[in-house]
């Protein structure tokens, strides 16, 4: 059966991978028949209505899902298609209370035109009462016009008529309302680096968070990702090199736990602990179903891991006869860390700790500057499922989702970068992204830095 998905018109490169992830979660196969990133309407093939409901129910970027009754590039074609597809079914709806809605993208119709459009479907012969609130069945006429964005990017010509028209019967809403529920503005415990609710929920979906599963964020911070994974039912663990980030300032209260409490998902929270990914206390066995993370890549803070700067020897300082590290308030030394070295550590960690087919969803920054390219990190035991990009002015970040391959399967990593930037002593020397975007004469800080230099 063909179904029509109505997407939210944003985060376009995340929409298909998220829809596919939701189908994987629902255990159904999905075929995407027609998709255009400049349109909210997408036609998919799914086994049945139950499958359509299950897929939509888990999606954040889908608004709702419909049974496709017909499509065309004009009303003549549409009516012909509707007759062909649904002629035998009209009788089933003859007495049902119903409603007709006109939905349009990048276009509009006045009341008179709307009335004409709705009346043009009178051949279906629905006699049921028209009910504007709580109808038993809701039919949608969708008109898709060419949007200004597409005109400016692709140079498509815009005409006064819709490019595509659909008739469909509504089946189900998605779980998009969760975006409002988890809005950072209403969350008890957040920080400047908290990931927004929508992208956190999408990340959890890409990694297939679900009841019964165990999820982990090694850079947990204020817990945006594990809260999202737990919203979908996973039990979650988090770690951070800086315990203050998840602990919060109020003594006696665990900041991150306040969030789980606020959303009524305390039973999904396992633990947070202070640790460093390069010296993780997690055992070297496969115990995790999913890893969701946004590693600290040095946009706001330089990268650090535990250890001494190269050239400085490791020492056990004794103060008043007590080793310094046993004294209260000891802060372990940290050293600068490479951007790519960090990503590789995450991949190696994922390979060790994910169960077969477990997923890693990791964010990484990249640039819009074509001269500098940041390769997607690869590992032969991980298959890349999807890469989605969120664009900002001078930089962008991408969400990369990997699947842990079962033993005996390998992925092709011949395109992967060989040398890794773990040699160097300063945060800037180690971090190509930081060099491009944060140093004098580059990217966003050009004006200000030139002034200081003079």
């Amino acid at each position, binding site marked *: 059966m063909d179904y029509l998905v109505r997407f939210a018109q944003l985060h376009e490169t995340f929409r298909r991978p998220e829809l596919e992830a939701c189908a994987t979660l629902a255990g159904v196969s999905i075929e995407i028949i027609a998709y255009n990133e400049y349109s909210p309407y997408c036609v998919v093939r799914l086994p049945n209505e139950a499958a359509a409901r299950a897929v939509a129910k888990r999606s954040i970027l889908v608004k709702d899902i419909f049974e496709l009754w017909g499509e065309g590039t004009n009303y003549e074609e549409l009516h012909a298609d509707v007759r062909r597809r649904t002629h035998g079914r009209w009788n089933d709806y003859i007495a049902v209370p119903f409603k007709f809605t006109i939905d349009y993208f990048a276009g509009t119709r006045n009341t008179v035109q709307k009335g004409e459009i709705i009346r043009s479907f009178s051949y279906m012969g629905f006699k049921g009462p028209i009910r504007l609130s709580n109808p038993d069945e809701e039919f949608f006429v969708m008109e898709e016009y060419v949007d200004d964005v597409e005109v400016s990017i692709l140079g498509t010509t815009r005409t006064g008529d819709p490019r595509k028209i659909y008739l469909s019967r509504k089946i189900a809403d998605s779980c998009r309302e969760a975006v409002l529920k988890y809005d950072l503005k209403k969350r008890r415990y957040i920080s400047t680096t908290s990931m927004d609710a929508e992208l956190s929920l999408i990340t959890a979906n890409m990694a297939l968070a679900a009841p019964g599963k165990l999820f982990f964020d090694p850079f947990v911070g204020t817990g945006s990702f594990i809260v999202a994974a737990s919203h979908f039912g996973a039990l979650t663990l988090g770690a951070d090199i800086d315990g203050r980030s998840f602990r919060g300032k109020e003594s006696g209260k665990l900041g991150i736990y306040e969030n789980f409490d606020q959303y009524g998902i305390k039973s999904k929270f396992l*633990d947070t602990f*202070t640790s460093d990914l390069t010296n993780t206390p997690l055992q070297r066995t496969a115990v995790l*179903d999913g890893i969701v993370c946004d590693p600290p890549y040095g946009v706001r803070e330089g990268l650090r891991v535990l250890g001494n700067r190269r050239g400085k020897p490791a*020492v056990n*300082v004794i103060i008043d006869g007590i080793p310094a590290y046993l004294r209260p308030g000891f802060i372990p030394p940290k050293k600068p860390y490479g951007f790519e070295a960090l990503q590789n550590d995450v991949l190696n960690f994922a390979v060790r700790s994910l*169960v077969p087919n477990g997923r890693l969803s990791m964010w990484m920054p990249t640039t819009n500057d074509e001269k500098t390219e940041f390769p997607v990190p690869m590992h032969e035991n991980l298959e890349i499922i999807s890469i989605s990009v969120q664009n900002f002015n001078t930089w962008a970040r991408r969400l990369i989702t990997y699947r842990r391959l079962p033993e005996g399967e390998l992925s092709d990593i011949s395109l992967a970068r060989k040398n890794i930037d773990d040699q160097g002593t300063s945060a800037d020397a180690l971090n190509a992204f930081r060099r491009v975007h944060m140093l004098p004469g580059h990217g966003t800080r050009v004006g200000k830095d030139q002034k200081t230099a003079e």
Partner: protein
Amino acid sequence: MKVITANFVTCAVKECKTSPASFPLHFNDAELEQQELDFQPEFIRNVLPRIDWEALRTISNELGFPTLPDSKPEGEALDNEQTLKDLHRLLLETHVTEGKLTCGNCGHSYMIKEGIANFLLPSHLGEEYHLFLNNIIPHALFTQIASQIDTPGLGTGF
């Protein structure tokens, strides 16, 4: 820290990971709390195969709980709701709020405060620690050399 987490963590020192003595970490001076949580049998069933049963028995004994059966419940035993509830209570509802976790291999102790364990290593237990662990230099000499190189009281790498 919940008992389930204790079953997944070992010593953060790289060299210790290969030693059987480093797992499980041993609880000392543990203060326990019970917290009631929703019973989630599908989670217990999913995670149980990944639990190291011998380690769980050790942890359970050290925390003063009755001895667990010799072998991990499998197959039909997992249909018994009481078995799953007992595991739920031990793994998820029992947590250590204060105490220490000590490595049986290197002897380093990790503190647990307000339920949060700190696995950060002091610098001399980090990547260069193998010099000492592999008996390239004895601990006393290691400490002595170290304290001569750095100015006492300043700490390292701040």
